[in-house]
């Protein structure tokens, strides 16, 4: 069997099918660590954690933030069932910043001994906000470098 030359990436969330594209490389946040996937990967099934994901098409990189769900990898295919997934350009930086601030406050309050606060929840929401900010930041940095190269 010849090795496939590219991957078909599918990302679906409960609300929509977000991505269906042929790509060259994917990196995704598995529970046990980041996984870089090239065409011809061994079949794999993993749970996802909150974190950034990127995929590469030629020289162009695309960034997404994903949270919770599963990914199935086949030699010519990557399927992602994510609870939440957003493209970098969709992320509202101000809102993410706001969420980060709130989550940090909650964690501070929890440290100060306030037991009403759901620590796990605050932690997850902080992770989500940080991921979003990181993804949005990377996306704009990448876009800038691409623009520079073109000029």
């Amino acid at each position, binding site marked *: 069997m010849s090795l496939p030359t590219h991957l078909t990436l*599918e990302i*679906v*969330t*409960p*609300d*929509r*099918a977000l991505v269906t594209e042929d790509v060259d490389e994917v990196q995704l946040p*598995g*529970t*046990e660590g980041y996984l870089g996937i090239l065409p011809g990967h*061994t*079949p*794999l*099934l*993993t*749970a996802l954690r909150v974190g950034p994901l990127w995929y590469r098409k030629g020289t162009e990189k695309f960034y997404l933030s994903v949270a919770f*769900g*599963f990914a*199935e990898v086949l030699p010519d295919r990557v*399927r992602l*069932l994510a*609870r939440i997934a957003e493209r970098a350009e969709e992320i509202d930086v101000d809102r993410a910043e706001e969420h980060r601030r709130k989550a940090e406050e909650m964690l501070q309050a929890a440290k100060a001994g306030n037991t009403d606060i759901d620590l796990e929840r605050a932690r997850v929401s902080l992770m989500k906000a940080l991921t979003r900010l990181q993804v949005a930041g990377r996306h704009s940095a990448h876009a800038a470098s691409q623009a520079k190269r073109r000029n």
Partner: protein
Amino acid sequence: MPSLIDLRRRIRAVKSTQQITKAMKMIAASRLRKSQERVVNARPFAIEAMRMLRDLAARTDASSHPLLAVREEKTVLAFVLTADKGLCGSFNTNIIKAAGQAILARSNQMVMLGLIGRKGRDFFRRRGYPVAYERVNVFQHLKFEDAEDIANVAIEEYAAAKVDAVYLIYNEFKSVIQQRIVAEKLLPIPRADLNEVDAAARMDYIYEPDPATLFDRILPGHVRVQVWHALLESAAAENAARMTAMDAATKNATDMIDGLTLYMNKVRQAGITREIIEVVSGAQAL
């Protein structure tokens, strides 16, 4: 015989009612389009999740998992999905009737109710049924978190062996003019669904983390997706029902206006004829 003025007033009243029903129909139509879109958009996720679960179940020993354990049904939890608002034809009546019948059919079992939607909650609460869970105002802004909450309740009750089965009773959106009531078993997850696997799925996989842990996470996910799907179906069916009901109401109002206008003209003509007769006979008397 009613006077001309009364009839005119009546026609005006029917007309303004008609305007309202027409507006409500338009609103329902636009909401229907949106909710229909959401049902379609949610489908790939549900299908993929089901497939993944099935493949995994074939490759791991799943029989021991608490969410698959089949027990004798002594206590069951039934989630009934109704609308929050009325004016949608027989949408709510039908689902409440179906739920009532299901309860009667299980008279030797204990039926707990999980009520989603104001109409169903009001009905069953007033009649003193045992309610395990209730929630209103979810359909206005349907979010996946709502489905998660409901699914979590089902999972907790089932895993703690407080109930022996969980059912979902809801209106499925078949077409704009047709809704179908379905009663679906949510838990235990039916084994038949898990057993049919094609050979290609039996490939050697790497698992992260190990299959058992993965299975533990996928099963609740599956339950959530099912609840989510039911919520979306119900929302679409509700909007469809409301649209047809309001369309019928608008038509009825048109018929009524026509009838009343005809009657009014007859009354008017009778009045004119009478006056002429009076004038003529008055002239003759001179």
